[in-house]
């Protein structure tokens, strides 16, 4: 009872503390905090105009990649033949000597000395070329990959018709190669290699992913996808997204691969390289890369042997100005090896075919 009496004293009425007023010091501190918060918001870099804020270690610098050890360069430029076209697109060596170049509205032929031999007028721009050798069913025939199909031309330039077997609306032919009775084309749109006979009948489609045959398929992030046949009857295909060159039988069986993704000179750099390649008469490979343009020679087993052309030679502005914008145009649009194993480089920036020969060769002596 006494406890109850004590509990109900008026002074013990439960009264929570109220919210007090703001002191001057507190008001000042709060105002300062508000200003800091406001400044922080106003300084938010919504458009990334103040950079990433990362240290130089993360800088996107090409400097080291653009320079090549001079000791590695085993070739020198011995000639340059201008191509009188508004744009150039594809290059192919003529087995007997000389080469063909395609561009807007025409295919131009040149002999080994660079003199013009033939001009074939076409509609559109051929994206790839191949010339049949003596082993082919129709020696000397010219095959041109057009946006709508494969067009055939007689050695003199007369059109012999077009075929479209195996092509669809996604097809984008980027490379052609010829071997005995076969014509093969790289279709970058469908990421396969199409195999026809000399009359244009589709024989097989090579490179469709098939785990049971250990075929992973081709990774083609951009419109660069090259193929080449060698005298050994083995098809070589650049798998640019994988930064490799792969070997297949004409029946489509996977045989092997070489190549490594790397910024070092030994490897293939960027998203999708090599963009082009050719095979020398002794089976070695000539590769061309885009982005940081460089042309190199690899052994049959894929070991780097020498450098043919450096970024400085192929795109001097890239080295001089670092203005990536101006030089994003692909500098190299094709490589080929002519009958004398000279290396031909189709320079898209200069619209010319540049000829490279080994240092210390016969031309050096002269």
């Amino acid at each position, binding site marked *: 009872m006494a406890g109850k009496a004590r509990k109900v004293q008026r002074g013990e*009425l439960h009264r929570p503390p109220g919210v007090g007023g703001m002191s001057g010091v507190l008001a000042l501190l709060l105002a300062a905090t508000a200003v800091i918060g406001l400044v922080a918001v106003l300084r938010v870099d919504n*458009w990334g105009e103040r950079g990433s804020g990362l240290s130089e270690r993360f800088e996107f610098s090409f400097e080291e990649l653009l320079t090549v050890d001079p000791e590695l360069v085993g070739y020198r430029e011995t000639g340059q033949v201008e191509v009188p076209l508004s744009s150039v697109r594809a290059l192919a060596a003529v087995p007997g000597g000389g080469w063909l170049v395609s561009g807007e509205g025409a295919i131009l032929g040149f002999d080994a000395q660079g003199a013009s031999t033939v001009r074939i007028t076409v509609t559109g721009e051929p994206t790839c070329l191949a010339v049949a050798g003596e082993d082919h069913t129709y020696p000397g025939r010219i095959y041109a990959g057009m946006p709508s199909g494969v067009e055939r031309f007689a050695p003199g330039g007369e059109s012999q018709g077009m075929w479209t077997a195996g092509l669809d609306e996604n097809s984008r032919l980027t490379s052609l190669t010829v071997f005995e009775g076969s014509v093969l084309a790289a279709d970058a749109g469908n990421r396969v290699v199409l195999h026809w006979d000399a009359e244009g009948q589709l024989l097989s489609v090579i490179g469709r992913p098939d785990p049971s045959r250990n075929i*992973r398929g081709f990774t083609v992030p951009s419109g660069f996808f090259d193929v080449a046949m060698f005298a050994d009857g083995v098809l070589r295909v650049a798998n640019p997204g994988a930064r490799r060159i792969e070997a297949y039988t004409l029946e489509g069986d996977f045989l092997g691969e070489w190549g490594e993704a790397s910024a070092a000179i030994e490897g293939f750099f960027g998203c999708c390289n090599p963009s082009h390649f050719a095979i020398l008469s002794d089976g070695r490979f000539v590769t061309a890369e885009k982005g940081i343009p460089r042309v190199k020679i690899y052994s049959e087993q894929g070991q780097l042997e020498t450098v043919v052309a450096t970024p400085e030679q192929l795109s001097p502005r890239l080295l001089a100005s670092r203005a990536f914008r101006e030089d994003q145009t692909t500098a190299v649009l094709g490589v080929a090896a002519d009958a004398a194993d000279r290396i031909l480089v189709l320079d898209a920036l200069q619209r010319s075919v540049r000829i490279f020969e080994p240092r210390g060769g016969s031309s050096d002596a002269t």
Partner: protein
Amino acid sequence: MVARERLAPLRGRIRRASALLSWAAWGTALAAVPARASDIIPVPDFTDYRVPISVPPAVEHPGWEWLSVLLLALALCLASYLALARRSRRGVYALTVACLLWFGFFREGCVCPIGAIQNVALALGDPGYALPASVLLFFLLPVVFTLFFGRTFCAAVCPLGAVQEVVAVRPVQVPRWLDHGLGLIPFFYLGLALLYAATATGFVVCRYDPFVAIFRLSGNFNMLVFGAAVVLIGVFVGRPYCRYLCPLGAVLAVCSRASKWHVRIAPTECTRCRLCESSCPYGAIELPTRPLPSRMRPAARTRLATALGLAPLLVLAGVLVGGLLALPLARLHPEDRLAERVLREDQGLVEGTTDASEAFRNTGRPVEELVADVLAIRAGFRLGGRWLGAWMGLVVGLKLIALTVRGKREDYLPDRGRCVSCGRCYKYCPEEQMTLGDLREQAEWESAETAEVASP
């Protein structure tokens, strides 16, 4: 010579066969090599650092979003019940913490009803934008509940409000003049956010959300500083974001004034004991008013007339100023900035390129086309800027009118627009304590004592 020619194809076949065999051996050896990640995702090779293969997060199952909608509806029901029917401050607080954990930290503050305003505005401004039904519900549910029960969403469901509710441990009163002045900002911010959303410029409310970096435990450093500043201020100034920034708070404040039911300070009858007078850290308690002395009435009428006359002028001024501010407002639109940058680059006024201008040039799109688009965007901003100016003028005008109108109140009542139904004031009310039994024994003792004194 003939024999050599006959033998040539045979030699070729032999050479091919041997080449095939060697390739076959190589291929067999490589057959066991698994596919490399670099086959699929090319990795730049600038340094020795091995760049990890980034894996995009799996697409969230839509069920999670609908679960959040369901939980939002349940939480609103529970918050309304706890605040209005049970009058349980503890219950409201527990629900606040639960919603903070779910909608804030687990769902990382998205979708939130505050940002959903912008989705709705974009859907109204751009017929091509498909407004997700769940996002629409995130906007509508709090509005509908507020029309019936007041701002119970703010009380216990909003994760942004929850953070501030939890940290408000040493609240102080903000001077009334400052409180009223800063209280206009949410309405301005609302207008700005709607303009930017409707013109597809961006969702500024989300971009400048001070708490999302806290919910996600990562974010832009500046936004972390901003979030920390708001939290620090929130320790002393109750709910600074809700009161002085939140655009949804502005919408709900208007809805709450028209709500069918609303929390009351006293559960039954207000005895005007003044105990609750300083209880609200949000300055949301309206005091009883006394009739104005007759000598002061003419001046009050003049003030009201002035405010009423000023309101349309403020709207008109807003229209004019808004039209003039169209170009600065459009500067936040990415296309506007891009066009200006590209033109300056073309004229040689700046060196180099930005990522945006670089990307634009790679598309091959003509600059003239970009400029034409930007002119159309600016025309939209001229119209939108006038609407925004009119809105701001209207808000200021209505505020002036509200300040001059003297309401008639006999009890201590919550300001329906500003009260977030948090229930902090309940315990200050003796009627509440009586109802809960805290003062029942005292009342019984007092009546017994009175009876003893009265008896001889």
